[in-house]
């Protein structure tokens, strides 16, 4: 365990290295999301978690990329398993910390209720929409379910990119800032494309039935204790995928020629 903690320290030093570009991008995105969350739409803060997940691997490996220090791990008096575990542990703790912080900020934003006066009551609109769609969920349950779902997706993205890092390593081409930015743009375009395709698919009876089935299942799971059950399932899946990627990375990194 001590070895892993030492390695985390090495990663943290690398994390606070000279290349501040990604860090500035991350902090800026964080601040914008928080401001939008406080003044316009509280649940928008969840986007911070998604941004953090996309940039986490780049943040952690940027120094390594710049100074080509990846090979230093070959000569460190440690095993490869500890290197992998240290990186996964650090990123998981950081993601959990950021998510918790953002969640608390979101709760505060909802409590101080400034956004309501700016937007004319999104809560009311959401409640009306729920009534029209015959959804018997409270607004808080919907917020919690959405937030935990985004957390799950973020953990999958983060652990997936870390696994790719351990499997393929980094180069000037991979995990660079431009590449990451392009990826984010592609993801956004992908979401728009998926939405468009889904909108067409929804008109097919079979797809409609499947969607109704999924939504009714999610609705019933989101009902108890303000969405706690569904949130726990989403969070569990997020951590479960991270654990799976960790084991895969340990095995793949062990086999890799450095």
């Amino acid at each position, binding site marked *: 365990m001590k070895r892993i903690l030492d390695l985390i320290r090495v990663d943290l030093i690398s994390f606070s290295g000279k290349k501040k570009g990604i860090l500035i991008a991350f902090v800026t995105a964080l601040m914008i999301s928080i401001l939008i969350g406080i003044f316009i739409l509280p649940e928008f803060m969840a986007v911070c978690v998604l941004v953090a997940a996309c940039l986490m691997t780049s943040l952690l490996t940027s120094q390594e990329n710049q100074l080509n220090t990846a090979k230093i791990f070959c000569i460190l008096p440690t095993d490869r398993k500890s290197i992998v575990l240290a990186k996964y542990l650090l990123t998981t703790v950081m993601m959990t910390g950021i998510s918790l912080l953002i969640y608390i900020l979101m709760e505060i934003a909802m409590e101080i209720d400034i956004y309501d006066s700016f937007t004319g009551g999104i809560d009311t609109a959401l409640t009306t929409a729920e009534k029209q769609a015959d959804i*018997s969920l409270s607004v808080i349950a919907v917020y919690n379910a959405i937030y935990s779902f985004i957390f799950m997706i973020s953990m999958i993205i983060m652990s997936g990119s870390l696994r790719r890092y351990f499997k393929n390593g980094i180069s000037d081409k991979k995990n660079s800032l431009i590449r990451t930015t392009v990826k984010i743009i592609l993801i956004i375009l992908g979401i728009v494309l998926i939405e468009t395709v889904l*909108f067409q698919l*929804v*008109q097919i009876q079979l797809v409609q039935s499947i969607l*109704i*089935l999924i939504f*009714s*299942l999610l*609705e*019933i*799971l989101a*009902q*108890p*204790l303000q969405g*706690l*059950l569904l949130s*726990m*399932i989403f969070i*569990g*899946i997020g951590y*479960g*995928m991270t*654990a*799976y990627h960790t*084991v*895969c990375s340990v*095995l793949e990194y062990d*086999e890799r020629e450095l």
Partner: protein
Amino acid sequence: MKQWLYKITAICCAIGFSFCGLPLHAHAEVEDVICPSGVAWKTVYDILHHNWENDDDNEYHPKKDPSYAFTVFQGDHILLTEFHGDIDCEDHIPADETSVYEWGSISKTMVWVSAMQLWEQGKLDLDEDIRHYLPDDFSLHLSYDDPITMLNLMNHEGGFCETTYKPESWEESEILPLGEALQKFQPAQAYRPGEVTSYSNWGASLAGYVIECISGMDYAEYVHQNILTPLGMEHTAVSANHRDNAYVREQWEKLKSYEGKLKFISRDSENENFGDILVFDYECKEKDIYFDIYPCASVTSTLQDLVTYAQAFVNDDHPLFEKQETQDKLLSGSSFYGETEIPSCSHGFETWEFDHVRAVGHSGLTHSCSALMVIDPVSKFGYVTMTNCPENLPTWYTDYVFGKLSPETYGDQNSTTYPINGYYFDTRTNAIGMFQFIMYLGSTYCMDDIKTIYSLGNDLYQQYDPHQGRNATLYGGKIHSDGSRGLKDGFSEAHEIKGYVFKISLLTAFFLCGFIAVFILMIKHKMKKAGKLESSVNSTILTAGQIAKIISVLSAVSLIMVITQRIHRFTKSMGMIIGMIQIICIIVCVIAGITSISMIFSKNTDKSKKFLYGFSAVGNLIMIMTEISFQMYRFWGC
């Protein structure tokens, strides 16, 4: 001359047909009649008549127009009858006097009328244990030794929860005789009789079977002989397949049922080409479902016959009973709100409080139709309505005829908000059996946030939101023998759940274990592929445990689907398969749990692995505890 005769006949026919084409309505001009709501009938007539004429005519108005019909009467005087829409929207068959609709639960009132007739004749004691009247070979699986009386069944206090399997048949040939059907679909007795109000179709049909046993004739035959014939209701069927009245059966076959759905349609306008938009329209749905336990919901008739039936209860000649006292007793309170004399139920009839009157009647809902019967025995006003599209039933017309219940009627300015805390569920649910866990997911609500319940003393409460209208709802409070609270509202009751947070946490852990098991299996597979995991008996048992967890969670999810998607064809054999799967999963989890514990205490196991075995043991324990405490294996109904 002949030509002229033909022409005159043709003109007469044309006039006649054009009148047939007009919407049907009948209205008696009664200038000085005042409705129980306190409003002059003329004003109410204008509102109701204007309401149904005022159809929305925009381009996105639903293309189909399912029917509804209603009648307002006072004594034997029909004030207004109207038919609107089509009983078959595809073939445009309009609703009229010949159309029939299903009564749904209004059918239960015929059971209660029959019971009161037998009580009047001295053949039935309302306070006697019904087992006294049932044949020896009719076995009731009861959880409590307390007697179940006819009065308990009338008040829906027999203690029965919802049946695990729907007592319905999709084919006429599958319909069982009443006694057999009642035994086949018997629900569990979840509550002590006379203590908890739990609306029960099965309980009402059991009362119908008691009528059969006492009278010695088939229930449908009894109703024909003692209710329909004396009232002259020639267009009413009582049996499960409606074949006891050929006319009704024929008309029922023409009837189609509809439900409202949101649909995407293309916007063709050249200037407003924003793509597709969501609009509301009606869809035809499956209708041919038969109630095996038919006395609770199978009566089908024309609107006129329901009106005739309703009018009998405000008729001073009491055509259904020998004595006026029997009719008065039937419509008097048999169950009350808290310690007050305000009735919540009148011998099986729903009882509604309005500002100026107390009305009785019943509402009804089937897969195809919906209906409502409201009568004020004092002013002799009545309102009945029926539809083949349940969501379109014009129930709000009662506001015009009977009025509302203002908060001031029973409360005053000094009424204080009553702080009710805790988690409650509606007693009309699967409180026992394999669907029990769903009650904790979807049917439970937290009362902590409700700030609109006011205490009026004598365990009487009323709920109203000062910001949303002036209509109040009454509740009766009670403390049950197990110390839990209950809030009764007519035929339903909100029942407090003790230890809800623990139970829902257990359920959460159950679902989580299922998902975690997927990742454990994925990890194991990966490690095995990399040659990092050796096969052993213990490892195989633990893998079987993980598979059992996944299967168990999937079985639970399939049960949620049955409930949320209202899958009516969920048969006993399907339930048995799921129940058996859960039993096998419990056994596998027990074996896996024991293996994990034995590995923890084994000297050959290293420290880091002991943690993983401990984790596995806890997972198996959670699965076993959840499956047993929520009775996920219990495929048998009672």
